[in-house]
């Protein structure tokens, strides 16, 4: 009887085990489904538009005739947001991280860290509203030629959004550098600034780089703030005062509109979505590889 009971519980445990495995396997399933649905739905698109024309074309005009499906303007728009937000977020984020890891007292850390967490936790829609109703008017008052929807405003707000990520990842990277290196540098007559810039910062460089790369990937995928603030005008120009469109904003534009299902312009969102997925996946994989490498050095 005892043995039977045990056997029954083994069965039960086997079932539970299976369920747990299924849940873990779900993540693989998600990836596969993402890839399959993106590929499946963009096949009709690529029957109409040659892949090379899509990738290398410089006019994106899917919603009005004559329709053109050159994705480069969307890529350029996305790139503009990435570069602009990096210009905002990298200096502030890195300085924050240095302040946190080098200069801040434990009490100061206890105030700054949650502030960054709050900034990171604010929904992107709120940032979009902020860009349109606060940043854009300021930009307009500085330079009157600024359009209502413009790349600069969106870049600044995306910069604010990715700032906490850069700050906290760089802080981790700087703190992972063994304290003995700082002591060694100071014992050789370095000031704290010299120890930081000449020894600690270079030692943490791969971690810092990885944080930038992860932040770029966030900026590439950022949707609501750029949809609201940057407008819907695909453009190859690099003028920050003008309206642009990013890959994500195009997907939103089509989803919000009444584009009929089954048309090439509808399937275009899957082609753009696939490109977006591949770009962010590539960036993330690079970042994780860099991160793993630098962890190996010190652990």
């Amino acid at each position, binding site marked *: 009887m005892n043995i039977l009971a045990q056997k029954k519980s083994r069965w039960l445990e086997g079932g539970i085990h299976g369920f747990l*495995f299924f849940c873990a396997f779900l993540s693989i399933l*998600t990836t596969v489904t993402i890839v399959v649905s993106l590929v499946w739905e963009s096949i009709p698109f690529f029957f109409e538009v040659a892949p090379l024309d899509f990738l290398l074309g410089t006019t994106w005009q899917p919603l009005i005739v004559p329709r053109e499906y050159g994705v480069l303007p969307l890529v350029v728009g996305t790139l503009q947001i990435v570069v602009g937000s990096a210009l905002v977020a990298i200096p502030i984020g890195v300085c924050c991280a240095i302040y946190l890891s080098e200069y801040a007292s434990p009490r100061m850390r206890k105030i700054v860290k949650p502030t960054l967490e709050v900034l990171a936790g604010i929904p992107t829609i709120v940032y979009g509203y902020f860009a349109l109703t606060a940043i854009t008017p300021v930009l307009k008052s500085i330079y009157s030629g600024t359009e209502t929807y413009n790349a600069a405003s969106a870049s600044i707000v995306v910069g604010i959004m990715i700032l906490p990520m850069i700050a906290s990842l760089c802080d981790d990277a700087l703190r992972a550098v063994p304290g003995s290196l700082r002591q060694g540098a100071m014992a050789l007559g370095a000031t704290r600034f010299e120890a930081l810039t000449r020894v600690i910062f270079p030692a943490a460089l791969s971690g810092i780089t990885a944080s930038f790369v992860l932040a770029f990937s966030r900026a590439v995928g950022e949707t609501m703030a750029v949809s609201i603030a940057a407008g819907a005008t695909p453009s190859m120009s690099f003028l920050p005062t003008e309206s642009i469109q990013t890959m994500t904003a195009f*997907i*939103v534009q089509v989803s919000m509109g009444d584009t009929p299902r089954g048309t090439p312009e509808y399937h275009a969102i899957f082609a753009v979505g696939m490109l977006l997925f591949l770009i962010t996946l590539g960036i993330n994989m690079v970042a994780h590889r860099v991160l793993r490498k630098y962890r190996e050095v010190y652990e």
Partner: protein
Amino acid sequence: MSWLDTANLNLRKRRRRALYFKSICSLFTWSCFVLLAVLLVHVGHKGVGLIDVDFLRNAPSWRPEDCGIWPAIAGSLWMMGLTALISIPCGVSAALYLEEFAPKNRWAHLIDVNISNLAGVPSIVYGILGATVFVRFLALEQSVLAGSLTMSLLVLPVIIIASREAIRAVPSTIRHAALALGATPWQTVVHHVLPTALAGILTGVILALSRAIGETAPLITIGAVAYISDAPAGPMDSFTVLPLQIYSWTTKAQSEFQDLAAGGIVALLVFLVIMNGIAVWIRHRAEGNAN
């Protein structure tokens, strides 16, 4: 005789440079506080005054002065509840499997890498997945269920990663003690590992759900719309959520509607503050118990 005796140490100049650098760093750090303050004040001074009983009770309307956010609040609550029901069991189970049961082989590594990559996939891509699979393939249409399933997939990696960290923090001595008393691995996990890791898991879950409640893009892609006049009554009803309502008001040209958006944002932020407050409270209590 040392070269130090004749070297030009330039200490004053070096000290000054160090001081400038420190000042710049603290200046930038303070600018984060300023940014947050400006953001909150900007939204607050327009939005707080709008919030009254009518605003919370009414449905959106073409007349700004009649507008309310009740359908959006109800939709957000529905979606959050369903998302929690779906994603928490799945996420915690997956974390348990990966930490406690998974053999350390190539599959486990693959799942590992896959999860960290999924966490970096833009939310709008999940929206595309939801539109294809849930809305059309499973014919759930633009229902709360379709939205919640999409959102669940989106927050799963976050829940799994947070739960794994909490489970990993449970000292292995506890497991060994339980196993040595003849418990099965499953009993060990249910009786000892999970209760110990519970606070950490809950904190991660709440943070993941706060992310879900603020997400807009995937719901736009699956076709949820802002012009809903009633709160959903069941999981198959169509719905809207707070961020969508805010988006639709923000993109209207009239400034009255943009002010309504500020009101909606204040409501959304209150939601988030409550959820994060609960998370902080749980963490605090757990630390209290541990000491």
